[in-house]
C-alpha cells in the first residue's frame, strides 16, 4: 500500500470530498456535476487547417479516474495534451472554446504555462526518465522550481516513490542512473516524478502500452491508490484497462465526443451504437 498516512493532508483549494469509491464499484455520478474540476467547453482544436477536435464539452470530476477511449487518431491524446498545454510546442495550432481548471481558464493570458504545468502532472506513453540518477529524476520538478533544501527533497523522494510503489525496489540505489531500471520501474519512476510536486491533476497518456502484464497490473493498482489524492485523466487503448481503472469513460471518434458516462454504463449498456461497436471490439 502506498503510504496513505503520509498523504492525509488535504489542500485548502479543494472542497473536502469524503467518498473514496471502493475498487470495482465506482460511485455513479449523473450529468454535469458541481464538483467538476476540469470543464471543457465548446472546444475546437486545429493543426493548421486540419480540425482535429470538434465542439467538445465535458466535465471531469475531482479525484476520480476519467478514461478517454477511442480508435487511433480520434483526438483523445490531443485533448489530453491540451489540458496542460503541451500542444503549445507544436507549430500552427489554434483553438476555440475554453478549458477551465478549478474555475480558471488555462488559456488566460495572465496565466503562466509553467505555473499551469506545475499543477498538472503528466505521464507519457513511452517512459521518459531523464539522464540523471533516480533521486534527481524524482526531485526534478522541485529543482526547477528552485526548491533545493536537502531535507525537503529527501522527504519528497520517499513520499513520491512510495506513492508510485517503487520505494522498496530502489531505496538502496537512489544514486544509480534511472536507466538501470526495468521498463515497468521506469514508468513508475515517471509517475513518481509526476506526483513529486503534488499536482492537482495527473494526466496519463497510455501509460501501460509498452509494459508487460505484470507491470501493467502494478500501475493499475497504483492508479487506484492515487485516485484518493489526484484527479486522474487516462488515455488508453485497452478496453479492459479502462473498465478496470476508471470511474467515468469518454468515447471519442473522429474528434467528436460520442458518449461520456459512468464506466459501467459505457461497457454494459452503451447508449450509442458506435460506442457499443467499439467496446465490443467490432471496430477500432
Amino acid at each position, binding site marked *: 500500500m502506498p503510504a496513505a498516512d503520509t498523504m492525509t493532508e488535504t489542500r485548502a483549494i479543494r472542497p473536502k470530498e469524503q467518498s473514496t469509491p471502493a475498487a470495482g464499484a465506482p460511485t455513479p455520478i449523473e450529468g454535469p456535476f458541481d464538483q467538476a474540476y476540469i470543464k471543457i467547453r465548446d472546444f475546437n482544436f486545429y493543426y493548421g487547417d486540419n480540425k482535429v477536435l470538434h465542439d467538445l464539452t465535458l466535465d471531469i470530476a475531482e479525484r476520480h479516474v476519467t478514461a478517454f477511449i477511442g480508435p487511433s487518431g480520434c483526438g483523445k491524446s490531443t485533448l489530453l495534451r491540451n489540458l496542460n498545454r503541451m500542444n503549445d510546442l507544436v507549430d500552427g495550432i489554434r483553438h476555440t472554446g475554453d478549458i477551465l481548471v478549478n474555475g480558471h481558464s488555462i488559456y488566460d493570458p495572465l496565466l503562466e504555462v509553467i505555473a499551469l504545468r506545475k499543477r498538472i502532472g503528466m505521464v507519457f506513453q513511452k517512459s521518459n526518465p*531523464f539522464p540523471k540518477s533516480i533521486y534527481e529524476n524524482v526531485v526534478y520538478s522541485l529543482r526547477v522550481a528552485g526548491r533545493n533544501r536537502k531535507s525537503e527533497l529527501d522527504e519528497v523522494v520517499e513520499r513520491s516513490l512510495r506513492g508510485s510503489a517503487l520505494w522498496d525496489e530502489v531505496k538502496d540505489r537512489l544514486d544509480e542512473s534511472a536507466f538501470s531500471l526495468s521498463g515497468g520501474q521506469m514508468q513508475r519512476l515517471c509517475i513518481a*516524478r509526476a506526483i513529486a510536486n503534488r499536482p492537482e491533476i495527473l494526466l496519463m497518456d497510455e501509460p501501460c502500452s509498452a509494459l508487460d502484464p505484470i507491470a501493467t497490473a502494478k500501475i493499475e493498482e497504483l492508479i487506484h491508490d492515487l485516485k484518493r489524492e489526484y484527479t486522474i485523466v487516462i488515455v488508453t487503448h485497452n478496453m479492459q484497462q479502462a473498465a478496470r481503472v476508471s470511474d467515468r469513460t469518454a468515447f471519442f471518434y473522429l474528434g467528436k465526443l460520442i458518449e461520456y458516462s459512468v464506466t459501467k454504463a459505457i461497457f454494459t449498456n452503451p447508449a450509442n451504437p458506435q460506442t457499443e461497436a467499439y467496446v465490443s471490439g467490432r471496430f477500432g
Partner: protein
Amino acid sequence: MVWITSMGLAVGLTMIVFLLGMIVYNGLEVFWPKPVVRLELREGSTAGLNNAPAFGGVIVKTQEKAVQVLASEGETLAPQREYQLFVGNKDVYGFGYKFVDNTEIVAESRPPEIVVAERLEYGNAIFVPKELKLADGNTVTGDDRQFEATLESLVDEGNKRRTEIRRIERDQIGDLNRKFDSIRLARRSIEAKGGELSPADREKLAELDATSTALQAEYELKAAKARELRDLQHANQIVYTTLDGAERTLPTGDLIGFYYPNTLSLPGKAGLFVHRFWSFLSDEPREANTEGGIFPAIFGTFVMTLLMSMAVTPFGVLAAIYLREYAKQGVFVRSVRIAVNNLAGVPSIVFGVFGLGFFVYFLGGTIDRLFFSLSLPTPTFGTGGVLWASLTLALMTVPVVIVATEEALSAVSRGTREGSLACGASKWQTIQSIVLPASLPGILTGLILAMARGAGEVAPLMLVGVVKLAPTLPIDTIYPFVHLERKFMHLGFHIYDLGFQSPDSEAAKPMVFATTFLLILLVVCLNLGAILIRNHLRKKYRTSTF
C-alpha cells in the same frame, strides 16, 4: 560488390598503417645508439677526409650508387654500392654526412675505444680519446681505466654548472630585467605628463633612480657570478683524435654526454635510448633547432590547443543551441546552417589572414593603445601571440563543433523534453539540465574533431604567432603565470622549419621524423583524454534504450 568495398577499406588501412609505421619506426630509430665503423681506404684514395687513409662514422644507409660505371663488353662488375656515413665532428669537416664508395674501402672495423660525444655546439663528435687535461695540472690518458669515470664526473659537473648558469642568467637576471622594464615604464608615465614636474613626481623619479642603481649593482654581481661559472666550464679539457687522425681539444664543459657505441650492451643501448628520448622531450632546442629537444614546441602546441578548445566550445555550443532550439526553422536558418558547414571548407590560410587583420592588428592594436600605450611602439598584444593563434583556430574549427552539437541536440528525444516541460521546467531549464547533459558526449565528439584539426594546423599559425624559437613559454612561474601575448613554438611549424628551413637538411631529417611522431602522439593523447571523458559521460547520461 563486397570485394570492391572491402578492397577500398583494405587499401585505406594499409596506407594508414604504413604511414604510421614509417613515422614511428623512423621517429624512434633516431634515439637508438648505432655502432661506429672505422673505414680504411685503399692506398691513394681521395674518398676520405683530408686525404687521410682512414675515417669513420655511423652508417646511415647503404644504397646503389647514383652514378654507375658501365661495364665494358665481356666484363662483369661487382655491385656498385655506397655508404652514407654520419661522420660528426662538424667543427672539423664543415659537414656532418658523407657518401663513400664501397670500392674505396679496404677494411671495416669497430674499435671499442671510439667515443660519441654530444656537444653544445657543432653536433656530435666521434673520436678516439687521447687524454684529459685537468685543471689541477694532472692528465688522465685515454687508455687509463679511470678515464671513463673521470670524464663522466666532469660532464656531470659541467651539466650541473650549466643549469646553474642558466638559472642565474635566465631567471635571476631575467627577473632584474623585468624590474628595469617596470622602472622604465614608471619613469615614462611620469615624463609623459609633460610640463613642469611636481615635487612629488621629482621625488618619485629620484626614488626610481636609486632603485635602478641598486638593481644595476645587483645585476653586475649576478653577471660576474655567471662569468665565473662560465670560466670554470673551460677549466678541464679533453684532447682527442678524430678517426682521420686530426687532433682537437675541447673543454669538458661543452660536452652534454658521451658513450662508447661499439661496446654498449643491449640494456645499455636501451638505457641510452630512453635517456635520449627523454632529453628530446624535455630539452630546449639548440643549433637552429637541429639539436637538443623540442619541449617548448610540445608545450606550445598543448597550450594553444587547450586555449582553442576553451574558446571554441562555449562559442560553438551556444551557436548550435540557438540554431537548433530557439531559431524558427525556415529558409533563413537553413541557409545559415549551410553557410556554417561551408565555413569548414575555407582554406585555413584564409583564417590566418583574417586572424592577422582582425585579431592581431585591429583587436591587439586597440588593446595596446588602450592599456599598454606606455610600452608603444613595442607591441604587446598588437603582434602575433598564443591568444590570437588560439582564437584564429577556434574560428576555424567552430563549424565542426556547431555541426556536432546540433546533431547531439537533435538526438535528444522529444519525449524527454516534454517530460521536463511537463514537470514545470522552462525551456532554458529543460535545455540546461536535460538536453545539454544528454548531448555532452556528442559535443565532446565535435570538440575531439576540432582539436585534431586545430592541433595539426600550421599555415594560419605562421601569421598569428608561431615562431621558430621562442625564448619563453606561454605559461610559467612569473606573475601573471599565463602570458597570452607571448609568441610560442608549435610542433607542426617545427616540422616545417626543420625540414625545409634548416641549414643542414640531412641532420634535420631524423628530427623531422621524431617531431612528426611526437605531434601525432600529442594529438592522440589529447584525443584519448577527450574520448575517456566522453565515455565516462556516456555511461553517466546513457539515453534510454527502452
